[in-house]
């Protein structure tokens, strides 16, 4: 379980997030929705301790983690799939995954499960990450995060710039992870994806939570999404 309590942060003197609180439960997909510049990526970075908190607390499974250094967060159970993939471009597919495996101490059996999810990656094991197609890079970014054996997955616009078949794969993987009782925090701009896989939607507006809606009410009035998505 990922618990955010009253988080405020920003860059330099510019505050970006204002008193943000919400929870991602195990087996739940929470979508973070907001316009460009609303602070979604900043939220992810703050959760991963890549940005110091000005106020508030992040708890993972009830344990406060905001006093931990950034490199300890992954081991607490957060798997991060950042916006724009941010792979270790000059390393091979295998080496990218090895970095993830160092967090969990996982071995060949864990790798085998992940390759079962993404057979294409196994074929490309020894290829450098920068030579992969966009879709394959997204697979690798996802696989790298799964290698850390997370309890909660953070995905920042995973379908950005992908072709439809790849977007479908991203959705399928998220659905599977939810079925394995993983919590998922997903930043997503596509209405159809949000409506088909979210359990709850948190709307972020200028760094503040504007409202939270469960998916049933949203499906009844999907036009409510539009106000938060316009570019």
């Amino acid at each position, binding site marked *: 379980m990922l618990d955010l309590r009253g988080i405020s942060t920003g860059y330099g003197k510019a505050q970006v997030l204002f008193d943000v609180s919400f929870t991602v439960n195990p087996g739940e997909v929470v979508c973070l929705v907001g316009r460009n510049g609303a602070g979604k990526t900043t939220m992810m*970075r703050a959760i*991963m*301790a*890549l940005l110091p908190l000005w106020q508030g607390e992040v708890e993972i499974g009830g344990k406060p983690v905001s006093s931990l*250094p*950034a*490199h*300890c*967060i*992954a*081991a607490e159970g957060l798997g*991060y799939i*950042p916006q724009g993939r*941010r*792979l*270790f*471009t*000059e*390393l091979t597919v295998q*080496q990218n995954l*090895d*970095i*993830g495996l*160092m*967090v969990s101490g996982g071995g060949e059996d864990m790798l085998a499960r992940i390759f079962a999810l993404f057979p294409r990656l196994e074929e490309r094991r020894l290829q450098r990450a920068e030579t992969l197609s966009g879709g394959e890079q997204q697979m690798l970014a996802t696989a*790298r995060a799964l290698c*850390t054996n997370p309890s909660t997955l953070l995905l920042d616009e995973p379908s950005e710039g992908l072709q439809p078949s790849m977007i479908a794969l991203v959705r399928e993987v998220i659905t599977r992870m939810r079925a394995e009782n993983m919590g998922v925090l997903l930043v997503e701009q596509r209405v159809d994806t949000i409506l088909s896989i979210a359990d709850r939607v948190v709307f972020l507006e200028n760094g503040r939570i504007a409202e939270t809606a469960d998916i049933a009410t949203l499906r009844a009035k999907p036009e409510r999404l539009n106000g938060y998505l316009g570019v």
Partner: protein
Amino acid sequence: MDLGPYLLLASLEGAITASILALTAVGLSLVFGVMRVVNVAHGEFFMLGAVASWFVATYLGTHPAIGFIAALLIAPLLVGALAATADWLVLRRINYDPERTIVATIGLLYILQQGTLMTFGPDARPVEPPFNQRLAIPWPSFEGGFHLTWPWGLGTTSYKLFIIAAAITILFGLWVLMSRTKIGLIMRATQLDRDMAQAFGIPVERVYALVFGLGAGLAALAAVLIVPVQQAHYLMGGDPLLLSFIVVIIGGLGSLPGTVIAAVLIGLSDGIISVFFSPTLAKILATLLVALVLVFRPQGLLGKRIA
């Protein structure tokens, strides 16, 4: 002597310069590549390696070979530990900010230099080579049928050949470390994306301390190798620093293979031009080459354009 043997002799001297330069510059390149820190004190770590080598050889060496082997092991470790400490106490606290680290390492340069002057003194001190047989080099002659001649003055010493072999071995070891080991993988991941490295559990600050120590240790190792030929002196860090910068810029910032290639290029041409013309001309040409690289290929021979 004819031109041929002369050229061979000059290349040999150049190869020694290249070996020492490659080790030193690779240390600088590693630190810049992984940490984005321009370490102005790098030459002082070279100097400290030579000075530490003198202390170890003097106080531990009952026999030159024992003293030398002890220096080869102890000096780089000492210097590396000192550098890692400096990183932890100074660079980490200023958050590896590019401008402030330059100022901080300039400060470090003077502290190390003056500290050495106060303890080691202003004199140049020799360290005995562990072995130093003179080796004459044969030269083929075709006058009156093929036979080998032994031109007077064409020769080297076993120790000089050892320097070249040692440098090649160490560079190979470094290549294995960077490309075949877990710690190498961690260093490369940190170099490629510091934030993502942290998000995937890599303790970046500790990696930085290690890299800074390793970079300094390589400079120190180079100095231990050269000090039997060159003597230890508290001001000896200037030239290696300048030449390392030249090599790192030509090779491509942060590219280890590029650095090695550029070191060989600069070292060999330095040796050859020094013998046939003058050492000053060699330095002028090297500096000119840097200017040309900066104008026409700013990313260096093997460097990547930084976005």
